[in-house]
């Protein structure tokens, strides 16, 4: 399962989780470049850099509970900008609160995935996500991005 197309932006404040996610990606042979943001603020910096020419990531894996700017706020800003309006965003979080799920979809998140405790299950989840969002899914090319 190889795709040199586009980067993955992994937004997570937990270093352990980042390490485990990277391991799961590696174990599933997903070799796309991974950019890491350890909170919402950093994520926004990556997504809306000074240099507008920098290409957008192919997929955002977004945690919800983070210091400074939370995941939902990041999602709101992503959907609020013409450039990132159709960017695939998968919420990957510990929570399974109904209100978080509803809010995620209300704000235009593409998927909501709850991180399983068991690593083998997590491996499966990452494999499916990578497969679907990086290979199968067709992304809308936004006008702003094109222009």
């Amino acid at each position, binding site marked *: 399962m190889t795709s040199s197309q586009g980067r993955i932006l992994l937004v997570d404040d937990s270093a352990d*989780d980042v*390490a*485990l996610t990277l391991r799961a990606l590696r174990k599933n042979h997903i070799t796309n470049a991974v950019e890491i943001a350890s909170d919402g603020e950093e994520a926004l910096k990556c997504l809306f850099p000074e240099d507008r020419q920098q290409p957008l990531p192919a997929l955002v894996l977004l945690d919800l509970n983070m210091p400074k700017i939370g995941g939902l706020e990041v999602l709101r800003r992503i959907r609020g900008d013409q450039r990132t309006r159709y960017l695939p965003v998968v919420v990957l979080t*510990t*929570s*399974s609160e109904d209100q978080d799920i509803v809010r995620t979809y209300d704000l235009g998140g593409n998927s909501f995935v709850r991180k399983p*405790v068991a*690593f083998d299950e997590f491996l499966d989840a990452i494999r499916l996500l990578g497969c679907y969002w990086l290979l199968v899914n067709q992304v809308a090319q936004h006008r702003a991005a094109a222009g």
Partner: protein
Amino acid sequence: MVATAAGALAIALGAALLAGWDVLLSAPGMLSRTQPGIAATLIALGLGLPLLATATTSPGRVALTRVVTLAGLLTAALALTLAVGGGHGSRSGQIVIAASLLLTAAAQAAVAVLDGQAPTVAHSLLGAAACLCLVTCFGYLFAAADGRYGEDPVGAFGAAALPEAAGLGLVVLGTLVARPREGMLGRLSVSGPESRRLVRALAVVLAGTLTVTGAAIWLGLDRFAPLLTGLGVASLIGFGLYAAWAVARMERARADARQEAAASHSQLLKLIDNTKSNIYMKRIDNGQYILVNREWERLFGVRREEVINLTDHGVFAPELADRLRTNDLDVARAGTTVQYEETADSADGLRTYISVKFPVLDSNGEPYAVCGISTDITDRKQAEEQVRRLNTELEKRVRERTAELEASTRELDAFAYSISHDLRAPLRSLHGFSEALLEDYGDVLDDTGKDYLSRLQRNVRRMGRMIDDLLNLSRATRVELAREVFDLTAMAKDIGADLSEADPGRSVRLSVADDLTLYGDPHLVRLALQNLLANAWKFTGRCADPAIEVGRCQRGGEDLIFVRDNGAGFDMQYADKLFNAFQRLHSTADFEGTGIGLAIVARVVRRHGGLIFAEAEPGRGATFYFNLMSEREA
């Protein structure tokens, strides 16, 4: 007194007549000789009079009176026999006298024997005797006028000698007044203005009597003239007496009525004076008070004698007086009972009254007054006010409590969220990195090291499940119920399919009754059913022929859904611990479990107002029964 005197005179006269006193006087032919029987009767009746006049209860006196009067009766009978048989003097006169004496004696005997029980009998007899007495008197008068004394039988009918007639008159009068309060005489006694009228009537009767007598003498009628005249005069007297009796009766009736009216008036006054309400009556035309009761006097400090000429304006403040007057006039106009709530300043302070007012009608049916009965309802009003205040306070408190409850629910939410996130994250790291150890460093670990790592992983998984169950339990409590009718059969089959997919190594027979439906929140009920079926699945794990059945049954009037398995079962002794969180009846080594599943089931059922219980036997399976509040009840 009169009776005794009359008796004494009669005895004296009788004795004189018997002694022949009349013979001495008879020389000019004025008097005829008296029959001895008549003289003896006069003496006997004269003896009876004082005995009759003294009322006594001594048995000796009573017996003596009876003997004397009976002797009188016998003597009179003898005299009448002698008179009828012929003999001395004017025959017809003597018969009349003797008959009169017999009647009088009978009257005396009646009084003595009946002892005043039937005085009318005695007085009737006396009335008759008096009539005959009158006849003899007139007979004498006629005879005297004609100069025909003692010329019987050509003499006037009934003419008698004067001494005999006088004696007869004495005993009749004496017997009549012997017991003045009894019988007719008692009924004739009157007082007040009516008696003056009666005296006038009797004077007219007397005048008429004299006129009739004078006319008869002047006309010089024949020998029956004394009889006719006597009877006429007796009728007039009788009429006079009857009139007197009638008037007296009327007078008594009127006195009785007055007394009764006074009694009933005083009863009514007592009644209205002894009530806690204040009662009053006011004229409609000028608003003046007619009547107030004692409570009214006390409350408003005006005595009833003073209030009679006052109106409300003389008692109350102008504003209140105006309002009361308006209410009274409204009642008069309405012509019916009306109820008002009125507030007045009284001796008890400012009080509120409920006033029932109604018009009082005159004899023409026109309202002339308004009567009111006012009851103090201040205490009741205050109680009502207090109830209202307490209610408001209670509502406020309920609102506060609800707010507190909502706050604590929010805290619980936050807590659950925190558990979800904060506890699961480290678990994930534990599991992930132990997995990484196993994979990346498996070659430097011996089997024991690898075993330790897998134990670590198993426990991490278990803790993860416990956290998930706790979250579900919390969700079953917090989530708002969205009830609908749903297909329970499909739901059970669906869950069964999930279970067998997750555990493909086992084959469990699951039979679900057709057409099971329930009314409830499908998400929560699914959570409950999932736990029940997962339990059944788990506890049939060591069964040779595992079977699970879902169906509907009736128990004690309850419509129940049941989930039955033929698995390990449990001891009913611990059934009460079954539905508490973290209570397990089997060891983890025997059957994996968090001890929260049935607590979730129980919570879901209870939130639906339903019922849940279990029946089991170790080694022979368990059956869980539950129902939810029906759509009709919810």
